[in-house]
């Protein structure tokens, strides 16, 4: 019975194969086109509508410092910022070249004398400010993770720690960066010794503020992940008489990894958002300071520059989030499913 059925389908397939191939190919091409249309067209459409609406609204609003810039003006402002960066770089390179020349001449005329190297003191460009912001948020995020993940593991695995820390988490979690920052700045000023410091004071204050605000999502999600490890897995650990350290590293952390990463991802998002506010107030030379400076100088360029910053902040935030998702996939690969 089965054999007959198999044979008949096989022979049908042979007969049908030659004409089927090109049509299958066409079918395939059509489905690819359809998929592209579904995934690429809607965002493009959304973008077009957004730009049109923006242009319309921009043209109809007049502020004390000129018209609200449309997409075109913002685009030009972004171009100008990149150009400025290129100019500064050339100046820096020229400065280095001049200095090298002078050093050579100096050493020729007064051999053996100590030569004092000078740093190029150009003002930080927009791209430099982006880099500073990234460094700051990264420092704050690493600091937060180093505290939050181990603490979360303790919280999730030891009920006593959970109930001891619970109230503090509840109270400190909703505190805004604007409240933390002054405290942090005063403390940093008190403890900061310029001679042996590795970092700028403003950098340290901003990073710590970021850490204080981004601590909570990682802490809460880690402890949730650890507390909800499969009971069966914990029974296995008990039956195998695993030591505490083995249990934590081999069973609890891997089980909780997806939630730990969710927490870290949220933390990084919060950190990035908080950073801008922290930089504005602490004058850390990053994107927040850029926005603040622009706001202060109130030129006709102000609004377009700030809008460039807004888009940059959004874009980088989105990239950071994507990067965390990719990292999570990498780390938890094969972790899902299958008990």
């Amino acid at each position, binding site marked *: 019975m089965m054999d007959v059925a198999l044979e008949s389908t096989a022979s049908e397939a042979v007969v049908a194969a030659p004409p089927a191939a090109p049509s299958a190919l066409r079918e395939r091409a059509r489905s690819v086109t359809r998929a592209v249309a579904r995934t690429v067209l809607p965002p493009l459409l959304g973008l077009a509508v957004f730009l049109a609406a923006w242009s319309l609204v921009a043209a109809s609003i007049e502020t004390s410092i000129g018209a609200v810039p449309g997409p075109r003006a913002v685009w030009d402002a972004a171009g100008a910022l990149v150009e400025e960066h290129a100019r500064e770089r050339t100046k820096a390179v020229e400065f280095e070249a001049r200095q090298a020349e002078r050093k050579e001449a100096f050493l020729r005329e007064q051999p053996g004398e100590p030569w004092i190297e000078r740093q190029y003191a150009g003002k930080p460009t927009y791209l430099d400010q982006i880099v500073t912001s990234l460094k700051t948020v990264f420092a704050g995020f690493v600091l937060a993770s180093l505290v939050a993940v181990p603490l979360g593991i303790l919280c999730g695995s030891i009920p006593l720690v959970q109930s001891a820390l619970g109230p503090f988490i509840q109270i400190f979690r909703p505190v805004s960066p604007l409240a933390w920052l002054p405290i942090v700045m005063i403390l940093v000023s008190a403890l900061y010794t310029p001679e042996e410091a590795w970092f700028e004071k403003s950098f340290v204050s901003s990073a710590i503020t970021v850490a204080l605000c981004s601590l909570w999502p990682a802490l809460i999600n880690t402890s949730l992940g650890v507390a909800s490890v499969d009971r*069966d897995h914990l*029974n296995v650990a*008990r*039956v*195998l*008489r695993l030591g505490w350290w083995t249990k934590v590293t081999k069973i609890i952390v891997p089980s909780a990894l997806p939630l730990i990463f969710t927490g870290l991802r949220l933390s990084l998002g919060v950190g990035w958002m908080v950073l801008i506010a922290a930089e504005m107030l602490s004058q850390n030379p990053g994107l927040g300071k850029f926005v603040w400076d622009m706001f202060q100088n109130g030129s006709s360029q102000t609004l377009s520059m700030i809008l460039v910053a807004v888009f940059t902040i959004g874009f980088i935030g989105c990239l950071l989030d994507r990067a965390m998702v990719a990292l999570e996939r990498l780390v938890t690969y*094969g972790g899902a*499913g299958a*008990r």
Partner: protein
Amino acid sequence: MSEADRYLECWQLAKSYPAPAGTAVIVEGFDLTVREGEFVCLIGHSGCGKSTVLSMVAGLTEPSAGGIVLAGREIAGPGPDRGVVFQAPCLLAWMTALANVRLGVDEVFADRPVAERVEIAAQALYRVGLHDALDKRPGELSAGMRQRVGIARAFALSPKMLLLDEPFGMLDQLTRMELQEVLIDVWQREGITALMVTHDVDEALFLADRVAMMTSGPAARVGAILEVPFPRPRSRRDVLDHPDYYALRESLIGFLEEQAHPPADQHAA
């Protein structure tokens, strides 16, 4: 009775949980003695307390009353002298089969060199027929193969006893029969003592030396014990052809049916 005849002894074992209306007595007055090297199946209706008993023997659950003595020592808490096979194999999905088995091996044989520990774990996996799957993760293994790893993990520690809680309950009939052979092979070669929970009458008759039948709860206990006289090594064919097979099967099923619908007079008593 000699020490070997009372290798595992459960004495007046009881377990109750606090419930909204007083306490729920799950198991009470549970007596069972297992000889060294014996294979005993525990059979009973779903929810009667089989897992509860096994979990007390494993040391995962504290008995409310009574005691459990294994090889002359009262048990307190779980330990590597009792290998447990759960219904779901509970493998760690982020580790290979070998690493899953090594998890326990590394703890129990911590004083041996690494190479030797790897050898112990690999041998256990060979023993259950997983020659090619040492480096596979659970996700790449079939349900049957995963449970083989679960069995290997349990006996790799050279336990005094194997405790199995419906280990094949989630497998299809063919795989289940395959794994019964694997289990009986391991049990025979290692000379290990085994206590296995099942609700499959044929499985119990094929595997066990004795079948302990539990009454239905509340306050479940061992209602009757059935000796299974089939010679070993057993083949499935021989067991099915044995003249006593159907009589034994009938008495098991009869007991279970009686527990499901207790006759009126027994109810009154």
